[in-house]
């Protein structure tokens, strides 16, 4: 038996390491979440009433629709900005690459809370942006850029752009420069080389970044809570409110389950369409 174990997947120590992650996931995530699921169909009474409330087209449906809208819009903007940044990073000279690396990494060191408050200071009615524009007489009254969807999207894009750069830059860096040179030499002008060669070859990175950022933004909490100021409530904040302020645990739990199903659907769809390999390179 000892021999068989050695010939198999290693000894007891290796197997213990192998099982650590699944056991942790099971005890710290799956089991508690099973509790959440059970609340969603038992609180306050047994049945699917809470789910019906979410799907029936009332307030809660609006929260989900708003969340999806904000997520899709901010993801699209993030990918656009991140793509330009990745292109500029990968194709640049050494100096440009170094400067961009610093610019991409520094935001990681700053807490999401601090960054949200930073944007609040800039965007609110008596904040930096409106103050500057009014002082230069470009506008006569504040643009209303604080505490609305616009502010939430600005904050979310700012948070997610650095994350979107990595999958795209990794794929772009793997594109053989000689292929671009060949296309140019065979008669394609720079715009055509970009459209027909560079863009198709970087699409795996774009898809990977898109799915990652979309999943991320559907569950955003801090940024919309601060920059939305209670007027732009997204699902995560709504769950928080149901759980801790109105103590409607059943509704909060049902929303969590729907959110999880939504994210699972996005990931599953991406997996089916693109394959997991395009995410890990």
């Amino acid at each position, binding site marked *: 038996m000892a021999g068989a174990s050695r010939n198999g997947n290693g000894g007891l120590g290796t197997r213990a390491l192998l099982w650590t992650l699944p056991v942790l996931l099971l005890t710290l995530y799956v089991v508690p979440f099973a509790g959440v699921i059970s609340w969603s169909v038992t609180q306050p009474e047994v049945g699917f009433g809470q789910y019906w409330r979410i799907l029936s087209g009332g307030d809660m449906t609006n929260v989900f629709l708003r969340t999806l809208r904000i997520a899709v819009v901010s993801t699209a903007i993030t990918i656009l900005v991140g793509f330009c940044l990745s292109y500029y990073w990968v194709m640049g000279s050494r100096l440009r690459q170094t400067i961009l690396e610093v610019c991409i990494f520094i935001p990681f060191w700053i807490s999401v809370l601090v960054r949200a408050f930073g944007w609040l200071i800039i965007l609110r009615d008596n904040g930096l942006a409106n103050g500057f524009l009014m002082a230069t007489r470009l506008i006569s009254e504040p643009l209303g850029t604080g505490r609305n969807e616009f502010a939430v999207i600005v904050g979310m894009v700012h948070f997610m752009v650095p994350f979107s750069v990595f999958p795209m830059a990794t794929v772009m860096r793997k594109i053989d420069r000689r292929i671009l040179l060949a296309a140019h*030499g065979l008669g394609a002008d720079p715009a055509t080389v970009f459209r027909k060669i560079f863009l198709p070859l970087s699409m795996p990175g774009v898809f990977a970044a898109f799915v990652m950022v979309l999943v991320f933004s559907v569950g955003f909490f801090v940024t919309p809570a601060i920059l939305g100021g209670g007027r732009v409530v997204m699902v995560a904040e709504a769950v928080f409110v149901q759980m801790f302020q109105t103590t409607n645990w059943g509704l909060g739990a049902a929303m969590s389950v729907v959110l999880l199903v939504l994210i699972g659907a996005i990931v599953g769809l991406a997996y089916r369409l693109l394959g997991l390999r395009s995410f890990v390179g």
Partner: protein
Amino acid sequence: MTSHIKMVGVSKAFGAFNALNRIDLDIRRGEFLTFLGPSGSGKTTLLMILAGFEKPSGGMVTKDGADITGVSADRRNFGMVFQGYALFPHMSVADNIGFPLRVRGVDKRERQARVADMVDLVGLAGHQSKRPQDLSGGQQQRVALARALVFGPELLLLDEPLSALDKNLREQLQFELKEIHRKTGTTFVFVTHDQNEALALSDRIAIFNHGDIVQIDTPERLYSAPCDRFTAEFLGSINIFKLKNPRRQNGSIIGEFGGQVLSAPALEGAISSLLSVRPEFLDVREAGPASDEDGVRAVLRAQVYQGGSTILKLATADGSELIAMRAAGQAPCVEIDKPVWVTWPRLRGRLIPENSLSREVTEPLTTTMGGTWKITSNRTA
């Protein structure tokens, strides 16, 4: 043949490093011209300037008399085959080949017809819908060639296109390349560091060293009449005897080597002390030189059997080495370490100019007083 592309005083500097020193070159219409030289000799840089990917630091490139120095690569209408092929991995074979036509706005029906013609020319029938990564190296090479020729370029540039292939396939593709050159009549400019490839394919070869074209001529003339020691040693193997006290006598140069008087027809200009003989002209035997022959004493050190021929390595009294080639069928008649004569017909001895014609000194000459040998080709399988 008429002149097609002309390069006048083309130079290229990368920082303080001169990759090319004022190159003058006349490429003739329809010829197969090879740039041959060691790595770092400037041959690829010149190809990149020709293609329009690099801007020369000085000088001018003209096509049929018109200046094209500032014309970008996509407007030059030259085909190019890259080292490693650089095929588009997200396109099928047919789309790869059709790409140059698509960017030129050729309509779909004509595009398909011309792609089909190219597929036949390079022998890729049945592979049109495959992706490049599903093809073998030789097939990828053919796709790259078809893609570079499909739009009927006036000039085809090839950057070491065969270097990634194994020996047998390389030889087969050499024949195909030669055949395609004949069929299309396009001007080919081919870059390689493989002398055998250059000798096999080219109408003319330009020998590159340290950013200069040292000599440009037909393969036969380069091999039989190298203009300097670098060319002589770079193409094939050669034995070089440094003569003591070289002097003129009846239209020849004579001088001593290892106690023997050797001679060769004099060159124009200064007296040279470097007498060269190709290994295939050397005979190794016990009898001394006949009246129309020259010879030196040596001992046989080693023999290398190569199938079609045998390479003999010999050493002269002063320790310098000689290399002789014996065709198959001639039984080796000498024993290892036994004194023998190495002889050759006097007419086969050839002087090599000591002062290189190139503007820069090429390889530093070895300090051995006598002959030196060097096998430049070590690419025996």
